[in-house]
């Protein structure tokens, strides 16, 4: 039994200590917007924020989170998140959509850190987020559009 702080709430979790944060979030807490894509931090579909930093939840044991704040796509908020999600909608970035929670979490972390990212900044921050539908052009365009709106 441990306490996890997720989306602003303190939650008791019963998972085994080695359980990756991803599976606690999805299977135990029912926050299924965070996706499994590879299990080895190669695709970014599982990206969440831990104290505002983009983290691959598939390789972080839930017990390693400690008292830090976990934010998932269901709980991400604030003006950066809003701008990102609005840009994603306006440009119709999504296709299958499965990777997009992770893309958005990475993009929000980037824009929080770097309000006006260059293409090189975007490459560096987003290269770990795979999209098999290859919506990359619109992801890039949406990040620039969100930056302009902020």
């Amino acid at each position: 039994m441990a306490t996890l702080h997720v989306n602003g709430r303190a939650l008791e979790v019963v998972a085994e200590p080695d359980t990756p944060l991803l599976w606690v979030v999805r299977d135990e807490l029912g926050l299924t917007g965070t996706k499994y894509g590879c299990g080895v931090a190669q695709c970014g579909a599982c990206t969440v924020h831990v104290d505002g930093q983009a983290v691959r939840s598939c390789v972080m044991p839930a017990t390693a989170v400690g008292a830090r704040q976990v934010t998932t796509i269901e709980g991400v908020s604030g003006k950066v998140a809003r701008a990102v999600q609005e840009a994603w909608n306006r440009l119709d970035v999504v296709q299958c959509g499965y990777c997009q929670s992770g893309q958005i979490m990475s993009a929000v972390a980037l824009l929080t850190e770097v309000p006006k990212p260059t293409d090189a900044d975007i490459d560096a921050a987003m290269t770990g987020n795979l999209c098999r539908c290859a919506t990359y052009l619109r992801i890039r365009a949406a990040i620039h559009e969100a930056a302009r709106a902020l």
Partner: protein
Amino acid sequence: MPSRRRFLQSGAVVGMGLLIGVRLERAAAQGDPTAPGVFAPNAFVRIAPDNTVTIIAKHVELGQGAHTGLATLVAEELDADWSQIRIESAPADVSRYNNLAWGPAQGTGGSSAMANSWEQLRRAGATARAMLVAAATQRWQVPAAEITVDAGVVAHPATGRRATFGELAAEAARQTPPAQVALKDPKDFKLIGRRTPRVDSLAKTNGSAVYTSDLRLPDMLTAVIARPPRFGATVKSFDAAATRQVPGVVDVVRVPAGIAVVARGTWAAIKGRRALRIDWDETAVERRGTAELAAAYRSLAMQPGARARGQGDPPAALASAARVLEAVYEFPYLAHTPMEPLDCVVRLGAGECEVWVGSQSQTFDQMAVAAAVGLPPAKVRLHTMLAGGSFGRRSTPRSDELVEAASVARALGGARPIKVVWTREDDVQGGFYRPLYVHRLRAGLDAGGRVVAWEHRIVGQSIVTGTLLAPRRLRDGIDLTSVEGAANLPYAIPNIAVELHTTTAGIPVLWWRSVGSTHTAYSTEAFLDELARAAGRDPVAMRGAMLQHHPRHLGVLDLAASRAGWGQPLPPGRARGVAVHECFGSVVAQVAEVSRDSDGLPRVERVVCAVDCGIAVNPDVVRAQMEGSIGFGLGSALWSEITVVDGRVEQSNFHDFRILRIDEMPRVEVHIVPSAAPPTGVGEPGVPPIAPAVANAFLVLTGRPVHRLPFSRLAAGGARSS
């Protein structure tokens, strides 16, 4: 009404679907059980008193935009407001939701969603509209001709009366469906041909979209399955003692696919599987690796194969040609790797079974599950979920993930719902790949540099043999999916032979986005540029001269070339390459502008794409499909390859089965050819041209043809020159 010129007579136009539609309309009018006040004039549209219009989508949303497109067709003829549209997946029911391009089967594939629904769903919308108008006519006692419908509002301008669809729903439901309806003249389209927002964007950007993997049913357990490490192995014996010690593991059961570990939660199931000890019977396994298969295929390619196309006298023409060129191309096995790995939820009840899955072939899936659990297909209720990509992987002739989930549920006595999930390693190593192919091409040029002979041999496994599609796609021993894109070579060449060697191997194969064109577009279009180079001819001009009887090919070729600035100077270290190809009724040309990266591999800077897909139902979705197809095809051409050594797949996850990343995505410009023809598909036809376009630019840059994919083989020194 002057804008409604085209009258369709029942049964005359869309055949089976239309007849079924009419029958259902009658059923609805006779009191089909629906909620009070809901107007459900046919199988595809439902209007509720709250003014929502629900479109029932018979095609799965895989990312290709099918839901948005289907809704557009209905909403256009209904004159609905886009904001009132909702989407619901159709149940598995072949009597109402069959793919009209497939006959008596419900399913999605071959880029057929818009093409087969074009008349059917517009008619569904027009029928609903006519009944709303009839209801208003009755309520207001005014002539129907004086009533207008726009953006979800029915009005009588002369008297200022107006009513929403929702307000008229109950009365519309009591109207007699019209025997015939008029469809709009395309010049009056308000939604078709314009950008309407995707219906699924919001749910896919806030985490609320529910995929199969996200389903949580009461008492549900999660299963992962240990499958054979070599294709064709079976379980001899297993020891699950350690697995049963893993906290959360509930049961371990043997199923046809292997050994299933059933647990409370995914992580426990994965851990439990790691602790399994399985002794495999490998007497029947495929031990040949990809190197052995390719070597055997290269030998076969030297011998004549079964004739898929014969025209003129190619041997004589080759013998008398001024020059003969030859090339051998090799294409690797490719995994689909949709971002959502395969998964399926099954709940077995007494005499019935419920299935949740992102199904691409509901009818076949229903039959397969029925057989697995011993029920008639009608007792299998299949819910089609959003799918996290597919690219062909979810259209499985054996319905593997469904049968797995059904067999686990059955092994547990049906006590609890079961979700089977595949890990990424299961996906990459699980087979059902785009087959490995070897192509050998020979061509003859005359003294003027014209192509006078073309001999094309293809060697590889058949995708359709042994599947339910064999009767339709296997002709005289030729698997049409092996030769599509090659047998229908559009170029005016007097002597053409296209031949096929169908091989057998124990590595399971499957269609992969654009199917035969994944390899035939490359070999034909790359070889053509080798010929152009040898003849000293411009690749665009040479193609144009041989496409005079193919106006759609010519149209996209000229459009892409002119928008790309073909022939204009480029900065040093850059070159352009072109390719044009028809796939599933759409024709696409792409011009790639390419440089080289630090490893000497092609780096694609810009792609100009022209597409002729008939009427573009939603031009923004068309653009998105072209952009995505280019990235999908490019990533595979650059990096992707499944290799097998001693029967074992060498790759396991995205670190060694590489796909495109954001920093490798070129700028893409998409130009859509204006067309009045009915829509053809866009989910797949954007894939085939990109790899040969890049290869053709690379040939200009380096003088070196690329005869083996992926391009990354060049950096490894593995490129084979023939």
